[in-house]
């Protein structure tokens, strides 16, 4: 059928129209946002509440119990936030890696022909998935603080396990000298230290997320048609080879998108760390909030940081996803 070309006014061109509508919506959203922010600041002013982000450069009068680097009381607030963010990332990234490994093992276990192993994996998933994360945190914390020895237990030469956590030697910079932990009157000082708070958050996040990932991975593996496995076997591939070259690459397409959600959930759930005394971003922001009174600003910083972290994670996972998509020929 011959389609007669019609000339339309520029406003009626579909792409211009769509573009205009989208631009209009964005401008409208920006206007609403500006209105909200100006209303907030004028309301704060009317109530004599000091606002603004100036406080970030002022010295923070609190110390932080643990961190990637030593935060000294008296350093500016923005450094305290950075230290908090570093603590959040430290525990979240480690938990992502560990939960992926554990989730993978559990996912395969769920499909095992061994009834005992399968049963164990199913019970694990059902238990850890169905107990609220906050309760798991508290349970782990109560367990850890109770079980750890009161009198520091020394092992492997310079490692210590005590109520204040696991301390071990760490090299100073790139030099060949080591910072050894040692006993002081109450506890262990020096060296690197994994506190009970850190371990609680790490265990809690890892075990909880792994339960979800396991289901996710099982679903991914089951999504690959059985014929593919049989075809692999017919070609004379070993079980390992089938797994590596046929089953897993195809399963990943199904696994990655929901895994993105679970990892993003993990990062956000790490904000529960404050309940068990781990100095993460939220904990630091909370302390800053109460010391400076800048509630709106501190909450804003928390929101924007988690938003950026989640977006960054999405970008990485989308890239991974594209890499594993089936390349159609």
């Amino acid at each position, binding site marked *: 059928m011959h389609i007669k070309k019609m000339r339309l006014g520029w406003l009626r061109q579909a792409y211009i129209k769509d573009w205009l509508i989208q631009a209009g919506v964005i401008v409208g959203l920006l206007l609403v946002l500006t209105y909200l922010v100006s209303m907030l600041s004028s309301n704060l002013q009317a109530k004599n509440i000091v606002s603004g982000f100036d406080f970030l450069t002022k010295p923070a009068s609190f110390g932080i119990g643990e961190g990637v680097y030593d935060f000294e*009381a008296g350093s500016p607030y923005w450094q305290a936030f950075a230290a908090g963010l570093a603590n959040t990332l430290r525990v979240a990234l480690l938990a992502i890696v560990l939960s992926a490994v554990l989730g993978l093992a559990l996912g395969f276990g769920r499909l095992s022909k061994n009834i005992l192993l399968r049963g164990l994996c199913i019970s694990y998933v059902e238990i850890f998935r169905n107990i609220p994360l906050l309760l798991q945190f508290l349970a782990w914390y109560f367990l850890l603080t109770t079980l750890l020895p009161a009198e520091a237990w020394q092992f492997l030469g310079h490692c210590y396990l005590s109520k204040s956590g696991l301390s071990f030697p760490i090299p100073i910079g790139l030099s060949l000298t080591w910072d050894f932990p040692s006993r002081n009157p109450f506890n262990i000082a020096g060296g690197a230290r994994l506190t009970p708070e850190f371990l609680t958050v790490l265990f809690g996040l890892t075990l909880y997320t792994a339960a979800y990932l396991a289901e996710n991975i099982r679903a991914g593996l089951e999504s690959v048609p059985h014929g593919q496995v049989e075809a692999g076997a017919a070609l004379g591939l070993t079980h390992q080879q089938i797994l590596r070259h046929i089953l897993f690459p195809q399963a990943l397409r199904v696994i990655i998108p929901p895994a993105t959600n679970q990892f993003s959930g993990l990062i956000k759930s790490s904000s529960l760390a404050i309940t068990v005394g781990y100095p993460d971003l939220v904990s630091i922001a909370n302390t800053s909030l109460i010391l400076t009174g800048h509630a709106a600003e501190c909450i804003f910083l928390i929101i924007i940081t988690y938003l950026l972290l989640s977006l960054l994670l999405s970008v990485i996972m989308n890239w991974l996803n594209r890499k594993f998509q089936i390349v159609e020929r």
Partner: protein
Amino acid sequence: MRRNDCFFVSTNIFSTGFCSLRKIVRWMLVASMLTSMPVLAGKTLDGIKARGVISCGVSTGLAGFSAMDSKGEWHGLDVDICKALAAATLGDARKVKWVPLGSQQRFPALQSGEIDVLSHNTTWTLSRDASFGIHFTSIVYHDGQGFMVAKKTGISAVHQLSHADICVQSGTTSEKTLNDYFRAQKMKFRPVVFENFEASLKAFFSGRCQAYTTDASSLAAILQRETRNPGDYLVLAEVISKEPMSPAVRRGDDEWFAIVKWVVNALIVAEEEQLTQANLDTQKEHGNAVVQGLLGNADDIGKLLGLDRAWAYRAIQAVGNYGDIFERNLGSGSPLKLSRGANRLWTHGGLIYAPPIR
């Protein structure tokens, strides 16, 4: 035709989108007007009278100051201040809506107008007074930050806490005071900061921290309520800060500020004049000039505050004088058994003092 259809539909979407946007803006205007209403001067009391109830922000549970019993009734020194306010303004001490607030929510709740008065074991400091949009009214309890340690650690003084792990709850001045003090003393320590009260206590009692720090009165409450064997623990005698506890009101309503301030003062003057719930009626007729004035038998002082004649009479009738409140909630009549200490009347060597009511 197709294109036209599409155009029609999309303009439609645009127009409904725009419409709902206008609606949103209108609703936001209404909402902002609603939330900024309580800021208008002098309106807090009118609002309370219209609602028939005082909105009182208290803690989520701190024995002796504000805590709920098994029957759902609130008790404590901070609670009694609100009851006295309700009696003075509304004529009935039961007309209080209790709003339990965490450390972080208490100031926003007051600023936003969710509560009329914050009676929350809150320390009066310059920065809070000057930059939070609130006014502290008058000191109802003089506290200080102290430390609790396990006796088996052998610690008996604060200076022995160098290099210790110290548990502290987040969102309080305790955290800041702790840091300031150790810095000033050039002592090192590691803070372990909890939001969850139970977790912080668990950490201390399991031995994770060598010391637990908060206000001395709270330490006494914890020792009484949370330990199986209070004898195993020790509250160090030293305190490292001044923690004057005061109710607070929103800025911008001087009349309400004056009412909260003077109801507390009336309770203190009542103790000075040895007015109790029992002798109130006889004293009203036969008391001295100060008492007659306080109880509204002479000049009508209540009118100056925007209240009626019997405002102080009803407040004292509802909760007793300051000393009665203290003994009932924190002192000999309570499980805490705290001594009056700095909270004795100024005439007995303490710091509790009220300007004259005349």
